[in-house]
């Protein structure tokens, strides 16, 4: 049996279902991220595990014990709140020490543990300050230190790193992963930053308007998104609506607005409406006249390690990403060819409600 189990959890506020039928098993020592757009029910799910929101229906089990209706202060979880919820009248040191005090850790043992936790979040010098004397990111790190210092069996983190700069965020991600490895803490982290979810999670849970749409390893979520929503939400993607024109054993031909494109057959039949998803980094830019489609550079953006191009062509505007290998980038207006390997194309059944504007897909 899994360590933390949510079974058919639903939470309704009046007619709104903030969370619907969420079923999730987290193994002991696993790092799971809840990923989804704003308002999809991530915080609500976490709060139900924490015991601050009563599920309308369903059960939650922790280590074999039914905790669905257990009091929040009997669950012994370490929580980082989205709003930090620091104790404003206590110093940073006292904030972090509070949990230990509640666990009746002797005073002499508390100090080194608090100092160690503050060291971990790079705040050792701030122990004597009050929360209102800290910056947003510093407060967030105090919240993190406060949760990990008690060495809880389960850590619930609600966007614990959202306010940190890229470098610090990476360092904290590393620390979180490290704690989880060393101490074996089971961690459930809420984030809407997919890069963060991918880089430190064992598994990612994608949520969409209160429901779980996919639970998988980060790599699988990215490469094999089960719905078109996920492929759009996770990373950038080109979505191309079309109709299956012909199918043989190995390949199918899809007509995209009159342009035929070959893909791996799968279980498609002639006449199916489909949407093709191609990740920008899987599109290769080739010389004019080569490749599968012709195009012309409409815009280019410098992303540091990569170049992002918007390429106008017969399928509309497509995004393509090439590594910044030091060579000169393409200029706007330059004609190019577009090529890809058929196996990288993901196929979703059904058509988009409306053709997506690639510039809005950037996440």
């Amino acid at each position, binding site marked *: 049996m899994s360590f933390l189990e949510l079974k058919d959890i639903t939470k309704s506020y009046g007619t709104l279902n903030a969370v619907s039928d969420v079923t999730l098993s987290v193994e002991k020592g696993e790092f799971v991220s809840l990923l989804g757009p704003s308002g999809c029910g991530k915080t609500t799910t976490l709060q139900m595990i924490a*015991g601050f929101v009563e599920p309308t229906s369903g059960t939650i089990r922790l280590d074999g014990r039914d905790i669905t209706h257990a*009091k929040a*202060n009997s669950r012994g979880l370490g929580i980082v709140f989205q*709003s930090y919820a620091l*104790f*404003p009248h*206590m110093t940073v040191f006292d904030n972090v020490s*509070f949990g230990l005090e*509640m666990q009746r850790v002797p005073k002499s043992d508390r100090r080194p543990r608090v100092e160690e936790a503050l060291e971990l979040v790079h705040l050792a010098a701030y122990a004597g300050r009050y929360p*209102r004397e800290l910056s947003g990111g510093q407060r967030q790190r105090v919240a993190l230190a406060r949760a990990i210092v008690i060495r809880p069996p389960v850590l619930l983190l609600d966007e614990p790193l959202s306010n940190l700069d890229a470098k610090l965020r990476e360092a904290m991600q590393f620390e979180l992963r490290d704690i989880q490895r060393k101490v074996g803490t089971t961690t459930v982290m809420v984030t809407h930053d997919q890069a963060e979810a991918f880089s430190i999670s064992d598994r990612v849970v994608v949520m969409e308007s209160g429901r779980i749409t996919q639970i998988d390893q980060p790599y699988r979520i990215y490469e094999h998104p089960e719905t078109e929503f996920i492929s759009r939400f996770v990373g950038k993607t080109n979505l191309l609506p079309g109709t299956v024109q012909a199918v043989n054993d190995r390949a199918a031909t899809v007509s995209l607005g009159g342009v035929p494109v070959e893909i791996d057959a799968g279980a498609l039949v002639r006449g199916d409406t489909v949407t093709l998803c191609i990740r920008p980094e899987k599109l290769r830019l080739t010389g004019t006249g080569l490749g599968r489609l012709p195009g012309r550079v409409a815009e280019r953006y410098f992303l540091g390690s990569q170049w992002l191009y918007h390429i106008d062509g017969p399928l509309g505007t497509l995004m393509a990403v090439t590594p910044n290998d030091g060579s000169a980038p393409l200029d706007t207006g330059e004609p190019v060819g577009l090529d890809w390997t058929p196996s990288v194309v993901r196929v979703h059944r059904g058509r988009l409600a409306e053709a997506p504007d690639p510039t809005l897909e950037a996440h």
Partner: protein
Amino acid sequence: MSAAPARLPTPLILSAPAALLFGALILTPLVLTALLSFNEFEHATGRTHGFTVAHYAAVLSDSYYLEIFLRTFRVAALATAICVVIGVPEAYILSRMRNPWRSVFLLVVLAPLLVSVVVRAFGWSMLLGPEGPVNAVLMALGFGRMRLLYNEGTVIVALVHVMLPFMVIPVWTSLQKLDPAVEQAALSFGASRATAIVRVVAPQILPGILSGSLIVFGLSASAFAIPGLLGGRRLKMVATIVYDQYLSDLNWPMGAAVAVLLLAANLIVMLTYHRVVEGHYRRRLG
């Protein structure tokens, strides 16, 4: 529109009505009272003139007056303490209620404000009088008739009744400003509800408790109707002797001197309390 708008003393103009009202209705009478308190008083003619500090000397050297001052502040302090003990939990429970109950109970808490203090004081005196229902119950239970009126306890009870809303409202306001997640955070660390309230909620609503206490103390120390009606002739408080000086003895300068002393003492007590309590939370809560 030719004048440069930046030149207009807009803040002054906007605050002028309030300043005028304050000056006309509060400062002027206060200054006049203070001036009056230094006038000499002739018992024979009732005329007031000249300059003397004799009234202050008389009040400050007479143990009769000192006792009344002490009683007044004792009663006010006790009423304030009881208001804290009752009003703070009341506000907390109120803030935890859900609508519609919350609105209903908030109305119940505030309802006393809608009834005149005099009416409420009469209510208490009828309730506690020798023929009142409380005594009737006591008689029926075999305790015999008790003298419930005209003592400090009764005055304190009635003051608490009148002042409670002034404690509940500021505390309630500061509770509204709390992030509920902060209390939840305390619970998540295994704190009991009581510990969470004492260690986390109470310190944060200290400003509310402070302003509530100051209002209740100030109003209680200068209360007139309640001690006047429920304290009777024997149990005097400062406000009632001011009244006596003005209207029975017709010694206006003396009454003014007592009033000024009450104001001064009140200010000193309140400012001290404010400084002491505020010193504790200033840096933390800003």
